[in-house]
């Protein structure tokens, strides 16, 4: 609150009239050049508003005399990047995997492209990094149902599993609960699989009946030693990684009323270069086979 404007005896300048505990502030005049620069910034701002997009009105906005648009600029930059990448993407589409892997620059591009494609399309089911979830195979563990070479993965990704594509991978776990086995037998075979292949303690249970049932009904596809059969898409049972989880209940459920999951065929959604990139990425997650 201005109290009393007085003249400072030493400098001859007026005070501002403010006082804080006896300290008074001089109202020193601003240098004129400073004022001119301040005015110049206002003129600059006016010119800027005229040249660049500035004022909103009604449904739109004033677009500026230069016609500048950040959106257009981004679009142009994206188009330029795509044009620059086009040659490399064509090479990825054309070259066999072995040659792509021998070209570090090309491989780097493919792996980055593959990672982004995987995150947008595959991750919702297979999890980040291909860690898998119950019902959705782990891709990083090497527990392949249909094979883990680049060619195997490419076939699976291209045509899918039970996807309706004419070349899709097909397999069918029969519903043993619909008459082939009675509930007691299913419990027995589950005991056998859970202790023999899943590695859990038998706790004194006799699994010989289950072993017999397994040999008669399951071994044809899953193998007598539970190693599975990739030709038929029969999962390996003698493993620590299981499609539907590690529990005994999961075994009973899958034997009684099996779930037969569907993997889409990606040939209708991804272009060849992107598809090969995602194959290379999945192969690099840790489970890839040569």
């Amino acid at each position, binding site marked *: 609150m201005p109290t009393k404007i007085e003249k400072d005896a030493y400098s001859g300048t007026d005070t501002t009239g403010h006082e804080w505990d006896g300290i008074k502030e001089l109202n020193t*005049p*601003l*240098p004129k050049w400073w004022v001119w620069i301040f005015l110049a910034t206002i003129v600059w701002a006016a010119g800027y508003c005229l040249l660049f997009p500035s004022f909103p009105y009604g449904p739109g906005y004033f677009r500026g005399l230069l016609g500048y648009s950040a959106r257009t600029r981004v679009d142009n930059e994206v188009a330029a990047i795509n044009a620059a990448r086009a040659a490399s993407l064509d090479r990825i589409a054309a070259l066999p995997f072995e040659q792509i*892997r021998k070209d570090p620059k090309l491989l780097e591009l493919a792996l980055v492209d593959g990672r982004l494609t995987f995150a947008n399309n595959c991750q919702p089911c297979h999890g980040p*990094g291909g860690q898998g979830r119950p019902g959705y195979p782990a891709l990083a563990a090497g527990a392949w149902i249909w094979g883990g070479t680049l060619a195997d993965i490419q076939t699976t990704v291209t045509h899918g599993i039970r996807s309706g594509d004419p070349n899709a991978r097909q397999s069918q776990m029969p519903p043993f609960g619909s008459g082939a086995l009675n509930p007691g037998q299913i419990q027995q075979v589950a005991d056998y699989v859970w202790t023999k292949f899943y590695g859990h303690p038998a706790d004194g249970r006799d699994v010989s009946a289950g072993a017999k049932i397994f040999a008669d009904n399951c071994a044809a596809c899953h193998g007598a030693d539970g190693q599975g059969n990739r030709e038929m898409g029969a999962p390996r049972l003698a493993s620590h*990684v299981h499609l539907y989880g590690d529990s005994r209940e999961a075994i009973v459920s899958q034997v009684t009323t099996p779930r037969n999951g569907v993997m889409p065929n990606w040939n209708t959604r991804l272009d060849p270069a992107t598809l090969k990139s995602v194959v290379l990425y999945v192969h690099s*997650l840790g489970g*890839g086979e040569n």
Partner: protein
Amino acid sequence: MSRIAKTDRQLREQAAAHSGALYASRVRVYPMAVHGVMRRIKWGVLIACLSAYYLLPWLRWDRGPLHPNQAVLLDLWNERFYFFGLELWPQDIFYLAGALIAGAVLLFFVTSLVGRVWCGYTCPQTVWTDLFMWVERLIEGDRNERMRRDAQPLSFEKVWRKTLKHGLWLAIAFWTGGAWIMYYVDAPTVTREFWTGAASTQVYAFIFLFTFTTYSLAGWAREQVCTYMCPWPRFQSAMLDEHSFTVTYEAWRGEPRTRGKHAGDAGSAGDCVDCLACIHACPTGIDIRDGIQLECINCGLCMDACNHVMEKLGRSKWLISWDTLARQAAKKEGRPAPLRLLRARSVIYIAALAVALVTTATALLTRHTQALSVERDRAPLYVMLPDGTLRNGYTIRILNKRREVGNYELVLPDFPGAVLAVAEWDLLPAGKLDLPVGPDQAGTFRVLVTGRPMHLVEGAQPVDFVLRNRATGETTTYRSIFMGPKGFSPAVQAP
């Protein structure tokens, strides 16, 4: 009072006359040429500073065929700073922090001892302003001639002198802006590219920018920069005390000032003859006899001006001198003048300076020529393989600061049985990895570690990644962790 002397008093008169006005016109300062000790020191510092600035980019330094051969180069595009034999990576930026802290404390220390010598002698604003004033004097003459011509109506002589002056100023400013760019791009290359029109838009824009700032700040703004723009004069007084040497008027000897026929009369009159030479010589247009002021940059040119007059009048020189307030008070009372260079503040500044310098220098001298960082995969945290072993993924980044290919060996000594592999490399998994990194480059590898950890606690165990340069034997260790499920037993066998 003469007409010329009157114009110098404009500052104060204007303040009085325009009391209450919101804006003040700048009062032009016409510094007078002086000769003497201070002026000679100032010329020496000016020549040294400008020579270093203009010539340093042209100094060559052999670093081999793959690296720039400019001694001092801030290569922002390739993310390398070169200072003679030193090459800094972006990761070394904290040396800059150390250097800046040491520089700031050194500035405080020097200021507490001898006042604003930085402002008066070495500040770029002072150095270029001084150079521009020299050019101005060369073409338009000394103070009186310049003032007379500025007061005259436009004439041919006035026009060509002004044109020549501004032309030379612009030339110097252009050279200054051009030299600035040479610290960021190779000097001979950018010089050739500039004149053939092949340089980048950035180069032309920055040269224009620094030409403009040099011309306007040293030619036009001058002391206004120190008075209105620079923060340093506002708080430098915090480093000063009564034992700091500053440019001081010996009021006890000079007052009462008298002029004319009474000048120097024995008895009442002081040594000051009020000739105003100190004011005329001042590049910021102040009267040092008013005491220490914010505008005073401590250049000491008023001493030379005053000494010249005192010498002619046969009186003792150094009526304006480097001195402390305490010594002046003692001299006034005839006591022996105390000299206290070592005060609490100087000891604190020296200690802080020593800590900053020793820390930075030690870090610089013991700096490593390789660095390792290990980033663990966050998803998945771990992968269990069909046979029950665990796998963790890591992104490993190796900085090879040497100028030859680095053949590195990566091992996990405290994880027996661990198998290492690089994803997407056709390598047999092994207990150790050979990772080559190009000269002066960073290498990134995605490494998969597979094994049966023996000491998982709460699903994690620490694991050291040890990197060894096969050629030099230098090792770097990075501690990360290896994760698995809670309750994992390494004894679990393959089904």
